[in-house]
């Protein structure tokens, strides 16, 4: 994983609450056995007509969305299933961060393992971002801040370990493998 320290980009705004993983990537695309290329089917049923033509009014299909790397959405983003295909699709499309007032637990865990930054902000800050599609933002992972369009800055929570992994581009598996002695000792104590 590449280290992530700063994200500087424009936002795409998806002004819906409870964006669930079935919308992020519908289940019929889960028959893959690798993770590549899922960006094509990101938000598939909102993004394309049944025949495959892009729906012109969906946010990702508007010309101004090109190159925007931060997705801002309504409350409770990523609810539903545990499919890691959801962050795989967002990352493959090009997103680096998702901003909401609340992000579902499993989605958040999955996002962090794929270098997609889950950013939970206070309702007022998210309201400002929702009201300003295409705003230029600057996310500072070390400082845990998002620079908002009005020049103010908002803090977001992230646990120390996930932050360390993001800033240094390391993954959790290495840490777990280093615990071998403790794991073996734990197993030895049990029936």
């Amino acid at each position: 994983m590449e280290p992530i320290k700063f994200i500087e980009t424009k936002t795409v705004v998806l002004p819906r609450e409870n964006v669930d993983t079935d919308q992020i990537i519908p289940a019929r695309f889960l028959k893959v056995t690798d993770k590549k290329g899922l960006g094509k089917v990101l938000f598939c049923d909102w993004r394309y007509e049944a025949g495959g033509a892009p729906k012109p009014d969906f946010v990702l299909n508007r010309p101004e969305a090109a190159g925007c790397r931060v997705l801002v959405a309504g409350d409770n983003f990523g609810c539903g299933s545990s499919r890691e295909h959801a962050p795989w699709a967002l990352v493959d499309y090009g997103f680096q961060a998702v901003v909401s007032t609340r992000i579902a637990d499993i989605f958040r865990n999955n996002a962090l393992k794929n270098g997609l930054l889950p950013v939970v902000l206070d309702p007022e800050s998210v309201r400002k971002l929702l009201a300003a599609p295409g705003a230029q933002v600057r996310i500072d992972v070390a400082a845990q801040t998002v620079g908002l369009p009005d020049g103010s800055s908002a803090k977001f929570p992230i646990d120390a370990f996930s932050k360390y992994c993001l800033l240094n581009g390391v993954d959790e598996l290495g840490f777990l493998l280093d615990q071998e002695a403790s794991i073996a000792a734990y197993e030895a104590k049990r029936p």
Partner: protein
Amino acid sequence: MQPKTLFEKVWDAHVVRPETPETPAVLYVDLHLVHEVTSPQAFTLLRERGLKLRRTGRTLATMDHSIPTLPRGADGKWPFIDAMAAAQVAQMEKNCADFGVELHGLGDPAQGVVHVFGPEQGATQPGMTVVCGDSHTATHGAFGALAFGIGTSEVGHVLATQCLLQRRPKTLAVRVDGALGPGLSAKDLILAIVAKLGVGGGTGHVIEYLGPAIRALSMEGRMTLCNMSIEAGARAGMVAPDDVTFQWLAGRPRAPKGAAWEEAVAAWRKLPSDPGARYDREIVLDASALEPMITFGTNPGQGIAVTGKVPDPAAEADRQVRATLEAALRYMALTPGKPIAGQKVDVVFIGSCTNGRLEDMREAARVLKGRRVRIRTLVVPGSHAVKRAAEAEGIDRIVRDAGAEWREPGCSMCIAMNGDRLEPGQYSVSTSNRNFEGRQGPGGRTLLASPLTAAAAAVAGAVADPRRVLEGR
């Protein structure tokens, strides 16, 4: 000693390395269930890093999502929806063979939907930690296990280390007083709980279900209840084990036997929360006040009584709440203020890890017996064991005589990956757990309900109060 909750007891017993301000806890996993959709990339990770499966005895696999629910053809081939589904199943067989995972795949007499399969094999036991690359792993909490869904990267972590990195969640007590009335089941209760909490209301929490209405539930009912904890955003739901639990488990293939069984039960009796144990939050419901429930919208929290009316967005003061409701009703093409009963239905689906167990098949049969369905109705047992038991009671005949389809076990129209799906614009009444847009097929519209309510819709061809259908009114 400080009184502890059920959750705290199970958590504390599985901490390999405690949480610190810098690092999450290393938590040991007793049982890892694996299915074909969320595991291929995890096995790839193991191959890339040259890692082995750490504990074969704690890893158990089946297939359910991508597989057909029609029997093998005359040519001996399974009728897969497409080559990708067949390839995913073949990959699963190869991965399990290469890494030494015990697999109960297609054609195996124990195969079933992973959350039906694990408990009925006796693999899920009180006090365990259970994980699976599937959000409905919450189901196994019905046994007093701490069970939650994980992503595919974490599936790889558990395969390689039998452990996970976890931050300790908060606890939420859901206390249910009173008793469920006739014609109501655990499904109605959990739909009411999710409606009360909202789809994000349980985020960051583990739920413990408490109270007389919970104690009165069968194991099947407790599994239905815990299964949908994730629909309120809670990763896990738990019910303290009791004699109902032990009787259900006794004699199952993987349950302890003889003296080991006695010892296990003695330990399990110590699991329930201590008097005075504290929860971070608590809510209370009265089961006696509930009516059969059904959803009208595009998330599982949008539920109402089957005797109720479709809510009117105009009555919502909050702008965002109103917008969410309007979007849901637009997708569902339902009219605000209209009674939900009488709404035309095109397809009924009875099955899934929420309601695909023997008790659910019996409930459906209670309505279907001696009646005819007016619309396409799929009855899909959750596992081969459920199917065999139901057939031994003649339920398959009741279902077929009513004009409904009796299928092979699998996830089927719960997730519509295998070709069992709605056509655009169709309405279903479904006993599954998610009514998200397109969940049962692009453009499909899902109303979630209990097996009784779903079967009532099948015979009425429309949303109906199952109590009236059973009374013949």
